[in-house]
């Protein structure tokens, strides 16, 4: 990552390999610091991003992530959009259940990430892949 990142602009990062997941974590961390999230909230949103980026890689066959600073007038926040053109999630409710996994993980990725952020949206279909939007607001 370069030092002079313009954080006002959305930051994009492709997710194609293990190293990219590390880059997503670093990118999200730098934006979370920029909007002055507390240390615990930074840790939570970076952990959530790590889980979701890995899901994008493992289940979505790779994709991309966009990190934006959002402002609702009262507070600032970090918004992260994960998009892939993979096979989609056939049973969303099941996928959001703790401990459910098809990939040999612990089954906490999706459900755990949802608990770590303030807003969590998911759109998925077999045709267009999966798009997950998460937001963490500063306090």
């Amino acid at each position, binding site marked *: 990552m370069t030092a002079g990142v313009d954080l006002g602009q959305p930051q994009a990062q492709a997710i194609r390999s*293990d190293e990219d997941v590390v880059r997503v974590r670093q990118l999200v961390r730098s934006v979370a610091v920029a909007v002055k999230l507390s240390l615990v909230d930074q840790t939570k949103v970076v952990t959530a991003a790590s889980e979701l980026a890995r899901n994008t890689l493992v289940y979505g066959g790779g994709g991309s992530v966009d990190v934006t600073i959002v402002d609702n007038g009262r507070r600032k926040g970090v918004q992260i959009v994960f998009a892939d053109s993979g096979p989609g999630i056939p049973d969303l409710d099941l996928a959001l259940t703790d401990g459910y996994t098809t990939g040999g993980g*612990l089954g*906490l990725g999706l459900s755990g990430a949802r608990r770590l952020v303030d807003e969590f949206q998911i759109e998925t279909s077999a045709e267009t892949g999966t798009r997950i939007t998460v937001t963490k607001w500063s306090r």
Partner: protein
Amino acid sequence: MERVPILKIGDILLVSIQLDMSDQTAVQLQEDLAERIVATGCHGVIIDITALDIVDSFVGRMLSTIASISKVLDAETVVVGMRPAVAITLVELGLSLNGIRTALNVERGMELIAAARADELEYQLDDDPDAETATP
């Protein structure tokens, strides 16, 4: 790909994770550690995660696996130095790291391993007289 160094201090292997590991690096560490335990015959492994600013489910699973593998190889694993923010996040994530021993810092971790070894030795010593009295 970067590798996490493994240090041998007396009867203990010390792994101090200093970088933001990729999943591959984590898997590599798991393999390296198993080999080093067998090669050195050490009975204790301390994994220092003071420098880690996050632990996600993948790293959590790696820690559990390392603990299980070393148990099979007769070594005690202690994870030390977890930051408060990381612990709070793990609780929220729903990861309990079952079966992993933890300590606040390396020093406490060493005490824990020493105590566990002492218990085991004592138990073995205690065993003998019992065995003798049981078979007069």
